[in-house]
């Protein structure tokens, strides 16, 4: 297929037909959306969070709707890296999409092991999830400590030739400091934001709505926070920033680009409209026409402040 060259970008050496990626945990392995989306037109698919061993995820209620958003505590249910490599990855070949594998470990070494296992054909890049708020052992610790996060980046980089993207948690006091630390440790890009830790209570039963009590908030309600963080981080680092958090329309996506994101990542909005990424791509192209801008790259960081 040929695509609008004005939307094509190169991020960490990965050719992307559009700067629109789908967020881990919200788009399955991509194939679930094949009826709705030209997967090759996407910049990439960040697939389900993958761990060394299979995980069953959390028990009880895993999602709750909140005003203009949702909470989730899936708990990284996934078949494990081995099954992913043996069964899933070969199946994804036919879609000709950039597969970005989102990985989570319980220890620093886990990230190295996973990075090495995934250093194979068919994987475009690795995204390190150091901020999953729904998993008790580890995760959040790496995501809130610049030293631990840097160690995770180094462990991954030492074991793979693929670009390594570190996914930043918004549940920190100073996200800029985190971003700078992982840049220095060798991350090829940062993606942000992961979900904001939240909760909901059923006042009739006086019990938490979610089985895990707390969960990660996502969707339109987090967008202003995400946009602010992307803007702050993009100003502070030289590596590409992949911006996400509540993006549902082309206008949202353009805001993130203007704030300094080199590409945008769409999550929760896929649940509302499974073909939303295509609508966003069309909308960005229309904006380029309207603004007489030659290439989407010209929008990146073009905020006039």
């Amino acid at each position, binding site marked *: 297929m040929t695509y609008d060259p004005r939307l094509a970008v190169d991020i960490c050496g990965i050719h992307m037909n559009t700067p629109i990626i789908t967020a881990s*945990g919200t788009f399955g392995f991509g194939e679930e959306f094949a009826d709705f989306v030209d997967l090759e037109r996407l910049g990439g698919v960040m697939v389900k969070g993958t761990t060394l061993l299979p995980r069953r995820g959390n028990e009880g209620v895993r999602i709750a709707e909140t005003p203009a958003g*949702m909470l989730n505590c899936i708990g990284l249910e996934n078949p494990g890296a081995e099954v992913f490599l043996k069964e899933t990855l070969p199946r994804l070949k036919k879609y000709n999409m950039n597969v970005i594998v989102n990985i989570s470990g319980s220890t620093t070494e886990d990230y190295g092991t996973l990075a090495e296992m995934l250093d194979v054909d068919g994987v475009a890049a690795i995204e390190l999830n150091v901020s999953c708020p729904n998993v008790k052992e580890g995760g959040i610790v790496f995501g809130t400590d610049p030293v631990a996060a840097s160690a995770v980046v180094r462990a991954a980089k030492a074991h793979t030739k693929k670009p390594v993207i570190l996914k930043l948690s918004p549940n920190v006091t100073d996200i800029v400091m985190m971003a700078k630390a992982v840049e220095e440790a060798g991350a090829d890009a940062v993606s942000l934001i992961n979900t904001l830790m939240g909760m909901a209570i059923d006042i009739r039963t006086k019990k938490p709505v979610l089985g895990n009590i707390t969960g990660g908030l996502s969707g339109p309600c987090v967008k202003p926070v995400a946009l602010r963080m992307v803007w702050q981080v993009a100003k502070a680092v030289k590596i590409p920033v992949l911006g996400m958090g509540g993006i549902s329309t082309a206008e949202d996506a353009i805001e993130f680009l203007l704030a300094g994101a080199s590409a945008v990542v769409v999550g929760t909005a896929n*649940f509302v409209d499974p073909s939303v990424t295509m609508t966003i791509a069309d909308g960005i192209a229309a904006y380029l026409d309207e603004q007489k801008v030659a290439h989407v790259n010209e929008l990146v960081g073009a905020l006039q402040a």
Partner: protein
Amino acid sequence: MPETKKENHITEVIENVKVSEGVWHITVKAPKLAQAAKPGQFVQVLVEGAGLLLRRPLGIAGADAEQGTVELFYRVLGKGTAKLTGYRAGDSLSILGPLGHGFDTSAGNVLIVGGGMGLAPTKFLAERLEHCEALLGGRNAGELFWTKYYEPATEAMHITTDDGSMGTKGFTVAVLPELLATGKYDRVAVCGPEIMMKKTFEICREQGVPCEVSLEKRMACGLGACLSCNIDSTDGRRLHVCQDGPVFRGEEVFA
């Protein structure tokens, strides 16, 4: 089973009316969905309103390929279903589907067992089956407004109410053993409260009659991607109601 293409249908509301206390019936024009829909499958309805985000899963309660219409029944429970009652004829409604795997519709005499909103998807099943009878349960006669839909679609109706205001007093599962003992039925399809489905399955197992059950779980995507609708299979696997179900063989999910 070859999968039909999932699609987002921008439908037009034909009628949206209250049929009983807190229960509404909505009919939409959706020709392609009406063609593709199979009993037991569901749709994800996008109810638009301030602050609402996710789609609401509803079982397909009828599909008329000739008229190009699809029917749904919904109980007004929270914000989304309350908002849905405000849709009027001519309004447009975005409906994603058909989703999931439905009931077995092959030849045979089927006993449909249902209670509450579970009677919505099984109504569609009754309409598509050559031979079936229905065992309908409700708290009182008022809740069994369903009979008018089942009457033309079934060969016989058996009714129970908790208060005895209609049919036999008691639960469906109290009547089920004698019905099954007649040996008339090749299989059972049940949809209703989980406890009713579990009991129904257990009685069917005792009598050696295959039983399909239709489960409900909170859903976000409806496409097998978000993993919010997990359940455990009896052999210890994680299943996802939206993709592996919502209809399961009883023994797959009830020990």
